[in-house]
């Protein structure tokens, strides 16, 4: 049986036509008639289902190449990619489509209502030293090592044939996750801590109205995620020391002359009020201000066009902490990271645990409604369940994997 080859492909749109034919069968001579071969079996693949759909008229597939969004050959140069089956084609198209989300934002009009938020630059009060996780004390090393090993198992090599079925994804059960205690927290909580601390450390200047609005949207959506994942108590107690460092940094801002100084302090306070009940907050601020900048006031400030009930779009306004950026393969937000991770997990096989913690936090939020929310560390199970439905089901060669990664970079 012949392999399948893509006739036309719209990577960003997630649409493709493929035929069961000979490779490079797309050229014919103008000087002589094309060979009268039987018409090829042709399929169409598209979102949201990405199920191969048999079509009768090959002309429809070929004509797609006239539109600017479709490319007429995959790849542009070199041998055409051969797929052993129609489902393998569909998986390739699905992964390329998922990778496309990794290119959203970048300062333009993107998801989450306004593009990738930029961290303030040149602010003398933003601490220079990165707020790195205290790996061992958080008790996450073993868990993330397990996660990384599963990702590595999906890595590819030259010996892998395009369209080979991937090893089954083994959900990381609650048993594999470290228990929550006063000294150890789960990876989902750790991911949340990283992102929340990031917000505490980067309060926009009061004069930057647009940046303030984005910051408020980010804070609120992070808070909603923390509530949904029921990690509020972990954030308040277990991570207190960690977050308190960020609050301490942020509270230096009142030393600035008003109005920026006053605003920054208030903003930090509101954030801290949400997540902490520590002395930095209690001792520093008068009760009247404490009430004024209460949680309802912050919630009512969310007006950036995002729906509080949406889960995916706000992730494009969650900036990645600087200390994980070197491992993020070019992603600047959690939304971008998640898209690139799901499309090409093998490219993150050597990433440090900060990446995995943030991915697990985001994945747990997207799939939070699992049946067994009463079990310990259920958040980790929720993350695994969601990843199982989104991660690759087929393996491809390095050459093909590189093509998928390019979609995230260059769409």
């Amino acid at each position: 049986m012949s392999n399948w080859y893509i006739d036309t492909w719209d990577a960003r749109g997630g649409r493709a036509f493929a035929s069961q034919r000979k490779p490079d069968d797309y050229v014919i001579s103008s000087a002589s008639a094309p060979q009268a071969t039987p018409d090829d079996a042709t399929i169409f693949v598209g979102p949201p289902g990405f199920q191969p759909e048999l079509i009768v008229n090959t002309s429809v597939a070929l004509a797609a190449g006239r539109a600017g969004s479709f490319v007429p050959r995959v790849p542009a140069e070199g041998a055409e990619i051969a797929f052993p089956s129609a489902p393998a084609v569909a998986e390739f198209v699905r992964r390329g489509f998922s990778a496309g989300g990794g290119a959203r934002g970048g300062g333009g009009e993107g998801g989450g209502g306004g593009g990738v938020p930029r961290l303030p630059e040149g602010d003398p009060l933003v601490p220079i030293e990165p707020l790195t996780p205290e790996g061992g004390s958080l008790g996450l090393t073993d868990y993330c090592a397990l996660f990384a090993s599963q990702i590595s198992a999906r890595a590819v090599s030259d010996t892998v044939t395009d369209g080979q079925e991937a090893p089954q994804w083994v959900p990381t059960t609650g048993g594999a996750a470290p228990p929550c205690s006063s000294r150890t927290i789960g990876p989902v909580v750790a991911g949340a801590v990283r992102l929340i601390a990031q917000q505490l450390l980067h309060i926009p200047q009061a004069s930057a109205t647009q940046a303030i609005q984005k910051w408020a949207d980010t804070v609120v959506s992070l808070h909603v995620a923390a509530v949904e994942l029921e990690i509020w108590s972990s954030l308040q107690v277990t991570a207190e020391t960690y977050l308190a460092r960020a609050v301490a940094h942020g509270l230096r801002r009142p030393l600035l002359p008003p109005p920026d100084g006053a605003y920054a302090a208030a903003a930090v306070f509101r954030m801290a009020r949400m997540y902490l009940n520590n002395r930095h907050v209690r001792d520093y601020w008068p009760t009247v201000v404490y009430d004024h900048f209460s949680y309802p006031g912050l919630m009512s400030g969310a007006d950036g066009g995002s729906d509080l009930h949406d889960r995916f779009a706000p992730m494009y306004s969650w900036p990645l902490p600087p200390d994980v950026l070197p491992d993020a393969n070019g992603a600047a937000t959690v939304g971008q990271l998640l898209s690139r991770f799901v499309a090409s997990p093998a490219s993150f096989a050597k990433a440090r645990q900060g990446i995995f913690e943030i991915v697990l936090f985001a994945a747990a939020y997207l799939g939070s409604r699992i049946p067994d929310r009463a079990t310990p560390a259920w958040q980790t199970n929720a993350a695994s369940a969601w990843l199982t439905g989104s991660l690759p089901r087929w393996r491809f060669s390095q050459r093909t994997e590189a093509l998928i990664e390019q979609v995230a970079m260059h769409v």
Partner: protein
Amino acid sequence: MRTSWLSWLRNRWIAWAPQKTTRAPTAPTPQPRGLDRLSTSEFDKEYHRANEGAVAQVMRGMGPDDTDPKAGAGARIVFNIAAAHVLSFCERSAKGEPKPYQNAYDLHRQVYFVNAADATLPLSRRQLVDKALEHATGQKGPDIYFGAIETSGTGVRFYGDMCLVLSAMPVLSSDSTKPTAVPSDGDCYLLDRNSYDVLREPVKSAITDEISRSGGTFDVAAGECLKQWLGTLAQDLVRVATEKVSIAMPSSARLWTGGAIAEVVLQDEDYFEVLRPRSFGTSDLVEVRVSAADAAAEADIATRERAGEAAGLHELEWRQQRREARRALARANVPTRVITTPGRLKAG
């Protein structure tokens, strides 16, 4: 006294019946009587004429008894694109770029092909068909933007979930009392089928046989074939639409409905191809249509997302793209409409 439908049919039959001639009488033909008349071939012809008129009315955006087009109705040129590309299309339109909608040549995708200038080298299939079209129309591939004819549906779904509907009406009213005007885009070339059909059986073999007999090259022979399918929108759309509907719904003593006509004009993979010699932007659109099936799928994904019920990333990405597309269109003052009943004009 009110005339019954049977009396009306009888009167129509009498009015249409051929007049007596002075020719010598031939063998007597038994005349149908009563309801038997309904099954005669002549009566079928009368129905066919009525149905032909119905096709013209649908193409002009009018109901059976209308004299003016209804808003949003009638044959339109449509282009389907994926929601992912709507944002950049709107941005190019807002910037006033000359080609907001882009074809393959605009994006310099020639790199995917070998050099067409060297006749000894093989051509891509698209280049070959473009050369055949150039032979048939005189228009060069880079100048052509390929669309489809649609009445009230959502276009060719394979190419994208957003159906961009041009506002131009290629077919004007036949009312002789109204001033004559050249319809917008009426000069566009129209093919009654996909031009790539020249590369598929049975046409491919027919062209091959012709070359064997008469010599010549495939692109020229294919171009001659395309000429047989070619017309212009203003002059030929009603004719080719009537022919297509006639094949799908053989002439019989039944009236075609507007919805049935609309569904046959663009049916699944089978559509009329339009060769528009210019690009377009958001200001050229009357609306963007999305299918009810896609809208339902999107709503289902949104529900699962908000409930945390594990919608996959590809589903979330698709929903996000569609939402961004709608917002971009709204900023450009282009309405987006869900088509709940293809073939009928109903807002969703």
